[in-house]
């Protein structure tokens, strides 16, 4: 009661506070799964199929067993009785979806290069790798198919014989009188694009480590996962270890980009083998192994048609997707393209909407979530198609965009959802001003007039995306098996610090920092007095984990509401201490003010802990949990502009400038937001210009390591020029949207529109991603007189 009238606390929401996480990462004190040890531990080595499609006639593990240091070795058949269910697929989009059985180790057939066919347990990692080479597998090679479109043809080899087709599912969404709108359209454009297959490349390879307590049938499983909570329930299903006996921990996790939003064969294997051997088990992938065993992303053929008036007002959009699933369905494989299903109209006001997506099995690594998951694909198609429309009617792409922008919010869109808020003109205007659009168009014209062999290209991408996954009822309606809620707990400890339990599980984003900022701001703690715990199912029972730019927009909002609950209870205690009625107590930032006296929330927390003098009937302790289920997605948007220069002699593209204006709603920490956008743009540019997972016709991954799969580095990029506009989301009290994926969503379209813009005077209207020098050279050769 001797408390000062106001605590002195820096404004913490919106401040560019340095990340709490970084010191330990920079000083090498992070806890990585691969660094963990336990007496008696064994290492797994996985024997993988060198064939894209082969019958497994015989597996002889005896030579491996005879090798010194090998503890055990199993074929798929030897270990099959460990499995109580297939590896999980949590999103079966239609009732008639073909969902194959998926054992952690193949038994009869290998279906892609990298498919696991046997496993070794050995006393060292090197020994395990040596023994992998000794396993003799007798394969009967079968014809394979790697291309999704080819896989749909009548005579294509079948990936799964039992379905009689390679079609996995077809999913449709129709709204408005699309056929009539097309029939009546003054102008139509039809485009076909390829979404290259991408390899996620998190900096930390995948690893899993399991310690069993055989006497109790208990297991602790550490995994490089984005989804420890989902892993626990699904691994329990796969292995039959009860959820109560399985604790899953995601310690420090070095990136994921969606690749660790999955439940993998090796996690199930490590758990089952720990059970069999009663010993600790570790597995860590090598980079090349990861390229053929960790999910890939994208792999779509997109056909998009626009119907428009002569002026360029778009009336209807029709989209047809053919999507490579790979050989099996991983956790969300078939649902990924559907996360973009509502967005093929972009940020434009269209009346007619038709979407159809067909998922197809091929003899390749399964695809699944990769940064943006469905939304980069949608953004790419509509943004490229709008440029095609502008070319068709001879207008500037800026003008066509302005003619079509959605301007009233909340905005119900033709595909059936409602965009929360936005101001697309504001972002575009700012981007054009910063880039100097008119001057650039002038330079472009004068270069052309002078016959300069280096062409200038300017590309726009005005995007809107939906993230913050998601309202549980909507997820249920589209047949996703889990909810979209998130949980947060705040625990005010007796001595003036607070603990946060976050159901959202970071893997590099900076939750500890942002969550601390929110709690500091709302409850009056110093930033460093807040400790954020995450990623351990024994410590944080409730969680839906981290993906789809959902952590802040769902988990952060849960935290906000948990703080409300803390304040609500603390107010009762404060009123009791101040001996006034609750209604006479004002709260602001950590202090309860009564008439003439005040008490801090920290003092209240102490009083709640001692419980010597609490209001009648109130429970001791000051702790609150809130589980938040969002009423809507959140809808970040923005305008990105790429400027490229193309050397028409060599075909080389140089990205000269990149300007991004993003509206991600309220910003909690601008430095973290910028970091997310930096990385996102880099990955988007990588898709447009560098990265491509290439299979040959026999199903061999040609880009099988970092020498041939071209992950670009900072030296390949200009300095990103970042700006923001801000329209807070009205659906949550923080006003936050999401920022984890925007860069990767917007950038491919901006860059490719710039590439095509540079070449359009030569008569080129399409270059397949990635725009390699050779592809551009060939396109120019074709049009050269």
């Amino acid at each position, binding site marked *: 009661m001797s408390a000062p009238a106001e605590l002195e606390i820096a404004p913490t929401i919106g401040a560019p506070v340095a990340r709490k996480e970084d010191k330990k990462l920079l000083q090498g004190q992070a806890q990585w799964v691969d660094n963990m040890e336990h007496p008696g531990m064994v290492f797994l080595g996985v024997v993988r199929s060198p064939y894209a499609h082969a019958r497994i006639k015989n597996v002889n593990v005896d030579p491996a067993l005879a090798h010194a240091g090998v503890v055990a070795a199993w074929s798929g058949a030897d270990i099959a009785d460990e499995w109580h269910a297939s590896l999980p697929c949590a999103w079966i989009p239609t009732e008639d979806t073909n969902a194959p059985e998926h054992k952690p180790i193949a038994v009869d057939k290998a279906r892609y290069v990298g498919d696991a066919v046997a496993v070794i347990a050995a006393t060292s990692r*090197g020994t395990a790798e*040596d023994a992998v080479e000794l396993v003799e597998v007798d394969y009967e090679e079968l014809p394979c198919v790697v291309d999704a479109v080819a896989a749909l043809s009548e005579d294509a080899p079948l990936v799964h014989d039992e379905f009689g087709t390679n079609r996995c599912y077809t999913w449709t969404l129709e709204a408005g009188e699309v056929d009539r709108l097309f029939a009546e359209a003054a102008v139509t454009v039809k485009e076909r694009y390829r979404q290259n297959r991408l390899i996620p490349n998190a900096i930390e390879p995948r690893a899993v480590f399991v310690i069993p307590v055989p006497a109790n049938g208990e297991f602790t499983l550490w995994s490089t996962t984005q989804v420890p909570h989902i892993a626990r329930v699904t691994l329990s299903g796969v292995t039959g270890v009860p959820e109560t006996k399985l604790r899953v921990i995601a310690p420090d996790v070095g990136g994921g980009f969606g690749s660790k939003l999955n439940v993998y064969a090796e996690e199930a294997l490590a758990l089952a083998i720990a059970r069999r051997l009663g010993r600790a088990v570790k597995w860590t992938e*090598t980079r090349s192994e990861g390229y053929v065993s960790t999910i890939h992303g994208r792999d779509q053929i997109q056909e998009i048609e626009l119907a428009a008036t002569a002026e360029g007002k778009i009336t209807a959009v029709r989209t047809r997707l053919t999507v490579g699933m790979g050989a099996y369905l991983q956790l969300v494989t078939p649902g990924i393209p559907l996360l973009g299903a509502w967005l093929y109209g972009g940020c434009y006001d269209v009346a007619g909407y038709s979407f159809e997506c067909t998922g197809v099995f091929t003899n390749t690594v399964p695809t699944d979530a990769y940064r943006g998951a469905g939304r980069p694909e949608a953004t790419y198609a509509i943004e490229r198609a709008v440029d095609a429309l502008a070319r068709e009617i001879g207008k500037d792409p800026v003008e066509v965009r302005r003619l079509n922008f959605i301007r009233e919010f909340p905005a119900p869109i033709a595909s059936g959802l409602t965009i929360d808020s936005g101001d697309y003109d504001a972002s575009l205007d700012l981007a054009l001003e910063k880039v100097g659009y008119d001057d650039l168009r002038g330079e472009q014209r004068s270069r052309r007039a002078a016959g300069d062999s280096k062409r200038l290209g300017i590309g726009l991408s005005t995007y809107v995306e939906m993230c913050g996954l998601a309202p549980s009822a909507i997820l249920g309606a589209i047949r996703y098996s889990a909810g979209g809620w998130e949980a947060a707990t705040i625990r005010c400890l007796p001595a003036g610090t607070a603990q946060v339990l976050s159901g959202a599980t970071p893997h590099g984003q900076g939750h500890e920092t942002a969550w601390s900022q929110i709690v500091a701001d709302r409850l009056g703690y110093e930033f460093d007095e807040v400790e954020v715990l995450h990623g351990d199912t024994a410590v944080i029972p409730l969680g839906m984990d981290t993906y789809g730019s959902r952590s802040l927009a769902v988990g952060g909002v849960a935290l906000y509401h948990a703080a409300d609950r803390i304040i609500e209870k603390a107010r009762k205690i404060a009123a009791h201490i101040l001996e006034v009625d609750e209604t006479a107590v004002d709260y602001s930032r950590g202090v309860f003010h009564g008439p003439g006296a005040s008490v801090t929330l920290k003092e209240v927390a102490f009083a709640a802990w001692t419980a010597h003098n609490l209001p009648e009937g109130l429970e001791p302790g000051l702790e609150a949990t809130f589980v938040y289920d969002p009423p809507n997605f959140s809808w970040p948007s923005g305008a990105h502009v790429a400027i490229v220069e193309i050397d028409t002699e*060599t075909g080389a593209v140089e990205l000269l400038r990149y300007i991004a204006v993003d509206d991600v709603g309220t910003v909690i920490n601008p430095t973290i937001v910028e970091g997310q956008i930096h990385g996102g743009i880099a990955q988007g540019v990588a898709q447009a210009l*560098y990265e491509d997972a290439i299979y040959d016709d026999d199903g061999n991954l040609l880009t099988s390591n970092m020498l041939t799969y071209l992950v670009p580095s900072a*030296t*390949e990029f200009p300095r990103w020029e970042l700006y923001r506009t801000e329209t807070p989301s009205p659906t949550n009290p923080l006003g936050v949207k999401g920022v984890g994926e925007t860069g990767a969503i917007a950038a491919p379209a901006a860059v490719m529109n710039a590439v095509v813009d540079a070449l359009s005077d030569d008569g080129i209207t399409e270059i397949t991603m990635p725009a*390699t020098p050779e592809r551009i*050279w060939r396109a120019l050769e074709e049009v050269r007189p």
Partner: protein
Amino acid sequence: MIPAPFDYEVAESVDHAIALLADREDSKVLAGGHSLLPLLRLRVTRPSVLVDVGRLDELSYVRDAGTSIAIGALTRHHDVATAPLLQEHNPFVSYVAGLVGDPQVRHRGTIGGSLAHGDPAADLPAVLLALDGEIDIAGAAGVRTVASADFFLGVFETAVGPQEIVTEVRVPKLTAEHGWSYLKFRRRSLDWATVGVAAFARRSNGDIGEPAIALVSMGATPLRARASEAAWASGQDPGPFADEGTDPPGDTNGSAEYRKHLVKVLVRRAAEEASRH
């Protein structure tokens, strides 16, 4: 990945290294390790013993050798790139050493390793070939000198025998009359060249004398582009002839056909630059 098992010996002198190499079949020299270790990890190479010459400091130097500059085989790319003697007398070699890989690679990789490895996609071998440099190779029978024109025999195949080591490389001193250019076309800054062109000539009164053009990634070894050199010497554009006698690989960085196109553009540009420089 983890290499297959091997033994490891540290050489304490050149003679010791040669003795160690002779000791066992399938032995291999380890210098900077930046070509050898990736191959070991991919289990493409499985030597029974590695003879580490990386601590032979006596092979790490850049010295004035009269008409030439001598570079010890263990000199790291970074040291070649920054050596004052080279910057003064042969900035061509320093410049190209500075384009190899990235800073980490340049601080580990050695000029001797780069030559002995015999990778047709490597940068320094082509420069050496354009400059008519010399390579000293030490073996049980002593030291022999091999001209760069006779050194490169095939993909990963050079004049260095299994029980020999490269000890020194010599490049000529250049004068103000010499013009040079190195154009390295690559997708990412740390990549090997899709195609590289080293062009070198003596210029006097606008004429080009002793032109030399060497190509990277256009065949099994670094190649001299003889037809282009002749064209350049006679005042013609050497570009159109640059693919003559080449047999480039096709891979995910570019088809053979594209490389044959690219080399023409790069040779023209390199010759223009060397003529001006």
